[in-house]
């Protein structure tokens, strides 16, 4: 019973203090919400790109670019040589078709208008059966020496490059997250330190009549937790609203590239709120740690 009442009192006390200065409280919570939403949103973007690049790096496709001067017979011959038993499909993209589809893109069309001859080669898109990437790469090396073959390009090549960019992005997002986390802790620390100083007299008297350190500390910890909780909730709202409006637009924009942007799952949103509350508690813990010991008389 005691256990419950002690905590209920502390909770009421913290709530009362949050509500007693609404402007300060609101601006703190908004700051918290934004500080959490920014790295979380950043991470979401990076994670979306990450999924794409994983898909590609597992893709078993290569493009075989032929010499400009090859004739249809040569093309067919190369196509046949490529059609090994582990190859699922060899598709020809005719250089005339390639140019036509390029011309449909207005911006590039301007450039192309100034060119008389089609600069594009025939391309053979070779898709291997699943898991046959090693064989496909070997085939690519061999095909490069064939007559009529100009260049070989693997999707997995640029996927690897993309991946290293994404890894960098992840590190940046993590650094942002860590930085904002430290910022949140420092902010809560300052705020609660001030509160402890303001309530110095009360703390002293409470200790004189038998308050334990945890009794003194509890309302401050709850204050930090509540503030963090509300900040986390606001961050969730920001992220949800942000992704509701931007995910479909982004998906349209990047549909060609095959990127689908995700939304955070309910669990991830929950974790975000918990982390936010924890950061508040950590700030409050540091703020109360030394001061309460000092008032220990």
């Amino acid at each position, binding site marked *: *019973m*005691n*256990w419950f*009442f*002690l905590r209920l*009192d502390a909770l009421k006390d913290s709530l009362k203090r949050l509500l007693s200065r609404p402007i300060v409280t609101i601006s703190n919570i908004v700051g918290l919400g934004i500080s959490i939403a920014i790295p979380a949103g950043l991470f979401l973007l990076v994670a979306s790109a990450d999924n794409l690049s994983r898909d590609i790096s597992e893709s078993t496709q290569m493009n075989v670019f032929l010499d400009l001067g090859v004739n249809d017979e040569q093309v067919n011959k190369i196509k046949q040589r490529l059609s090994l038993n582990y190859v699922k499909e060899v598709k020809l993209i005719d250089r005339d078709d390639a140019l036509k589809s390029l011309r449909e893109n207005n911006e590039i069309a301007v450039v192309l208008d100034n060119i008389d001859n089609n600069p594009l080669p025939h391309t053979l898109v070779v898709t291997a059966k699943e898991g046959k990437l090693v064989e496909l790469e070997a085939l690519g090396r061999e095909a490069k020496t064939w007559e009529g073959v100009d260049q070989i390009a693997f999707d997995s090549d640029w996927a690897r490059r993309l991946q290293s960019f994404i890894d960098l992005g992840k590190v940046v997002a993590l650094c942002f997250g860590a930085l904002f986390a430290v910022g949140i802790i420092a902010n809560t620390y300052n705020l609660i330190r001030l509160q402890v100083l303001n309530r110095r*007299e*009360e703390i*002293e*008297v*409470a*200790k*004189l*009549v*038998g*308050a*334990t*350190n945890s*009794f003194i500390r509890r309302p401050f910890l709850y204050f930090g937790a509540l503030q963090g909780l509300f900040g986390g909730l606001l961050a969730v709202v920001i992220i949800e609203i942000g992704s509701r409006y931007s995910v479909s637009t982004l998906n349209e924009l990047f549909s060609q590239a095959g990127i689908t942007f995700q939304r955070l799952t309910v669990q991830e949103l929950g974790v975000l709120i918990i982390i936010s509350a924890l950061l508040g508690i950590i700030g409050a813990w540091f703020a109360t740690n030394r001061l309460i010991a000092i008032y*220990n*008389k």
Partner: protein
Amino acid sequence: MIKTEKLSKRYPGGFQALKNISLSIGSGEMVFVTGHSGAGKSTLLKLIGGLESPTSGTVEINGQDITKLSQSAIPFLRRNFGFVFQDLKLLFDRSVFDNVALPLIISGLPRSEIAKRVRAALDKVGLLQREKVNPVSLSGGEQQRLCIARAVVNKPAILLADEPTGNLDPAYAADIVAMFKAFNRVGVTVIIATHDPAMIEGLGARTISIEAGEMTL
């Protein structure tokens, strides 16, 4: 039963406030501690109540040496005492009621029980009608009685009162002494520090006098 053995206190800064105090106070006794200003009366009360720790010597309460208690046990020790502070230590950010309720809230009592006990304590000191006001609006004597109400609200076995009559006029002071006498009659051990000899007269209570930190009998 309270027993001190060669109790000494040197404050940080080097001032020797108490020297070799050995005394014994029985359960249910009423004792006065007298001496000039600066003699060490407050210091003695604080050592007995666990509000300060001695430089050397022991304080036994019911056979337990409280100077050996760990930091974390001190709060629970303090809950066994009622302390009337010389400087009152009232909180002016809350009502009379909430000042008295503080020790009970700290003990984690349910709200309804707290309200009952707070009103009983306020009734004993004659402040029941003032429970909603801020202590700022109380007179000096009323503030003194508020401090007494807070000291007795958790029904302590030992009451330590440091100059509870402060600068009150004699009639008022007599009132307050009578109040302590009443607590003592129901079995509470009462220790009162005072520099006012008039307060002690005619009570027949034991007096411990201190001079420059030493007991003079």
